[in-house]
């Protein structure tokens, strides 16, 4: 009795966990607006199972460093430079879960679920990396132009959305936000045309720590992007200035912010002039630093420019994205300089050095493998797979119940749990379901049935040998165990090799097979056994077993 109860509790917990990992939940995805082509965030509710590219459509690219136009000095280093660059660019695609992965030390895998245009994808990924150093907007020209922009936007009928805290460019750090909030409210209550009235754009921007730096709440980045893209806003951005988004997301309290920088349109130097960049930790000060060396010509230019900009901030921009926080120029720098990262980790310094090298020596990439799958194909595949799965399951249910009667019903119940656990495993461990994965799922239903068949046949044999029902069940389970474990371990072994050898879709097959075999062991050995125990308890005087 006690035994049955604890078994049922264990099964209940597993079911609860499985259902919990499968209930649809809201996820934020960045989607491209079909009309304007701009990115915005959207919330969708879906079952948290990752679908492979073959099921949801998308582009898979494998790239290597192009050595056809002459050997590349250090291909390993070159591919990691390329990886860094592609990582910066990949959010240009606006796909939900892009994958950028370095495999085997020489190949870069890029997966873009939902992306339809291979030409565009290849264009973005193979574009040569461009690095530049630019001085930030030290005179706060952009900040001063904000009221004008807000006014212009208001005439266009764009005002601050209700959700945003209505305030003029507000100091985020060290100021009393509640007071600001009150001020904002007052401004809303008494609308006037003074410059303090909340504007559509300035309501989104918080002044950062340095001139030209603004912080935008993460969830409002798309709104800010679309406002800044408007031609009338573009026109009002002060001449000689550009706006560039940062790469880092900073969290202050519960909210996270993305940095937007107003920088000079003219770079003081570009990656072409950079020759070397290495990261190290300074043993004297224990700071992480990045040392860089410029070409002779670059050194002369840099010396002149830095001389004019001592105490200004210099943004490091790779592919239009400001990398990290712009460092301050402490003194005139010549051919050799160093960027001090203070107490930041050596890892971050290494990353910055990689950015600099990527800009200095762009690694040309060649595509060695390319796969584009249209979304309609994936939908067809899913509906075919589900159809086949349902038909297969119905057949299995019919065979099991026709042959094993009530015991068959118990096995079918265990099969339902088996399917639940397998899917939950896919979702819980974040594996990807692919088309061959669906086949693996159906195949592992067969394996799950096999475990039950082994047990039931064993029980029948024990019954035929004249044993009592209780004893026959006990021994049936015990004796079938060896065969189940051995055959399942062999199945897992082959699946493991398949997993390590395979790419995308085949990996999916191996994963569902492994999960399916594990789930089938649990359900056949543990769940079906519990059902039998309950059955025996309910009918203690059973003379014949319906098996």
């Amino acid at each position, binding site marked *: 009795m006690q035994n049955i109860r604890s078994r049922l509790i264990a099964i209940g917990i597993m079911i609860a966990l499985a259902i919990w990992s499968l209930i649809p939940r809201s996820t934020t995805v960045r989607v491209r607006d079909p009309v304007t082509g701009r990115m915005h965030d959207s919330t969708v509710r879906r079952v948290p199972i990752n679908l492979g590219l073959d099921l949801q459509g998308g582009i898979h690219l*494998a790239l*290597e460093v192009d050595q056809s136009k002459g050997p590349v000095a250090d291909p390993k280093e070159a591919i990691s430079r390329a990886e860094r660059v592609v990582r910066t660019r990949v959010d240009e695609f606006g796909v939900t879960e892009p994958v950028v992965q370095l495999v085997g030390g020489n190949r870069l895998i890029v997966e873009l679920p939902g992306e339809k245009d*291979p030409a565009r994808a290849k264009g973005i990924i193979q574009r040569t990396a461009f690095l530049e150093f630019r001085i930030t907007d030290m005179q706060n020209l952009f900040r001063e132009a904000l009221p004008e922009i807000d006014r212009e936007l208001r005439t266009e009928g764009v005002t601050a959305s209700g959700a945003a805290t209505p305030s003029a460019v507000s100091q985020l750090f060290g100021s009393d936000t509640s007071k600001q909030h009150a001020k904002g409210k007052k401004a809303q209550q008494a609308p006037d045309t003074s410059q303090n009235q909340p504007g559509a754009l300035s309501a989104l921007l918080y002044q950062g720590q340095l001139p030209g730096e603004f912080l935008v709440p993460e969830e409002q980045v798309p709104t800010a992007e679309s406002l800044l893209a408007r031609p009338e806003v573009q026109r009002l951005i002060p001449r000689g200035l550009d706006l560039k988004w940062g790469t880092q997301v900073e969290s202050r309290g519960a909210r996270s912010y993305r940095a937007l920088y107003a920088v000079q349109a003219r770079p003081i130097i570009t990656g072409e002039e950079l020759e070397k960049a290495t990261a190290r930790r300074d043993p004297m000060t224990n700071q992480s630093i990045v040392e860089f060396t410029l070409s002779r010509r670059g050194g002369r230019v840099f010396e002149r420019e830095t001389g004019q900009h001592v105490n200004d901030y210099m943004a490091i921009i790779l592919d239009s994205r400001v990398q990290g926080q712009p460092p301050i120029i402490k003194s005139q720098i010549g051919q050799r300089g160093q960027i001090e990262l203070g107490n930041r980790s050596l890892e971050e310094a290494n990353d910055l050095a990689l950015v600099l090298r990527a800009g200095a020596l762009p690694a040309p990439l060649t*595509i*060695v*493998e*390319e*796969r*584009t*799958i*249209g979304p*309609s*194909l994936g939908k*067809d*595949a899913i509906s*075919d*797979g589900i*159809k*086949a799965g349902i*038909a*297969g399951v119905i*057949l*299995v249910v019919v*065979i099991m119940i026709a*042959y094993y009667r009530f015991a068959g019903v118990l096995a079918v119940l265990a099969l339902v749990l088996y399917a639940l656990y397998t899917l939950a495993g896919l979702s819980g461990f974040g594996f990807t379901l692919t088309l*061959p994965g*669906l*086949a*693996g799922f*159906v*195949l592992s239903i*067969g394996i799950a*049935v*096999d475990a039950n*068949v*082994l047990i039931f*046949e064993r029980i*029948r044999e024990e019954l035929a040998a004249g044993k009592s029902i209780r004893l026959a069940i006990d021994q049936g389970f015990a*004796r079938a165990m*060896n*065969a189940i474990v*051995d*055959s399942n*371990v*062999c*199945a897992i*072994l*082959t*699946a*493991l*090799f*398949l997993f*390590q050898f*395979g*790419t995308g*879709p*085949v990996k999916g*097959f191996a994963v569902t*097979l492994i999960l399916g075999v594990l789930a089938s062991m649990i359900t056949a050995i543990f769940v079906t056994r519990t059902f039998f125990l309950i059955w025996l308890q309910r009918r203690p005087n059973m003379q*014949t077993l319906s098996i």
Partner: protein
Amino acid sequence: MRRLFTDTRFDFIGVRYYAYLLTAAFFIPGLVLLLTRGLNYGIEFTGGTLVQIQSSAPVDVGALRSALDAHGLSGAEIQAFGSDRDYAIRARLGRGGAPEESDATVAAVQATLDATLGAGKYQIVRHEAVGPKVGGELRQKAFLAILLSFGAILIYLAFRFEWRFGLAAISATAHDVLGTIMFVSLLRLEVSLVIVGAVLSVLGLSLNETVIIFDRVRENERKRLKIDLPSLLNLSINETLPRTVLTHGTSLSTMATLAIFGGEVIRPFAIVMFFGVFTGIFSSMFIAPVALMYIRRRWPMKGAARAVTAPATRAAPAAVRD
């Protein structure tokens, strides 16, 4: 209680010569076919370009063929993909002038389709391009995966059973893998990654079958029945027969549903698996036990040897005492 195939007394070991004949009847032409015609590797393995299209009207394959030839893609294959509106066009590298640049192939295919079907009347639903290097690598990796899993299983079975069982199981499984590859060659199925997955699944399935029978052999041996090895093997196969029939009845029916409803990508997988179930059962019943028998004859069990020599050693001191 409905029971099938219980208490059967089939003489599996006795009919092994017919089993050899059957194997030879399939393997000899199969090997000849494999060696002469080889395998129909997909572009994953050869490198090349695949374009799958969906047309709004039925496609005239003849017109498409001659238009492809005209665009210099004479080596390209056109394959129907489920209906007369879905076609896959495959251009392998190094065969019939498929250009190295996949974009050039796609452009040629598009030009062909624009000419034969009309622009806008079709859409490209899938496009794959694989470089020659990746293809070669993949082929190596596929063979390596099969070989390594053989090795791992041999070690596992040697550990769980005994190396003679492992060797016998591996030889039966090798029979199935080879047979399945011949079957793929016979049907001219395109060797894709999915097919490699199917071959490895056949490997797993056949092994599973053999392990179930060997498990019973091991168990019956422990009972120390007073019968010779062939009878013991026969007994074990017969005892597991009901399970074999039922399990594979269900697995064949799921494979059949996959083949019928699973769609074009899954169908070849299901067909290969369907064949694999049969060869798996065959080899587990006729090859693995027979192999075990011969292996045991060649390398007799130490345990058995000890059982024979033990009385002798016990007798020896007695002789000294005399």
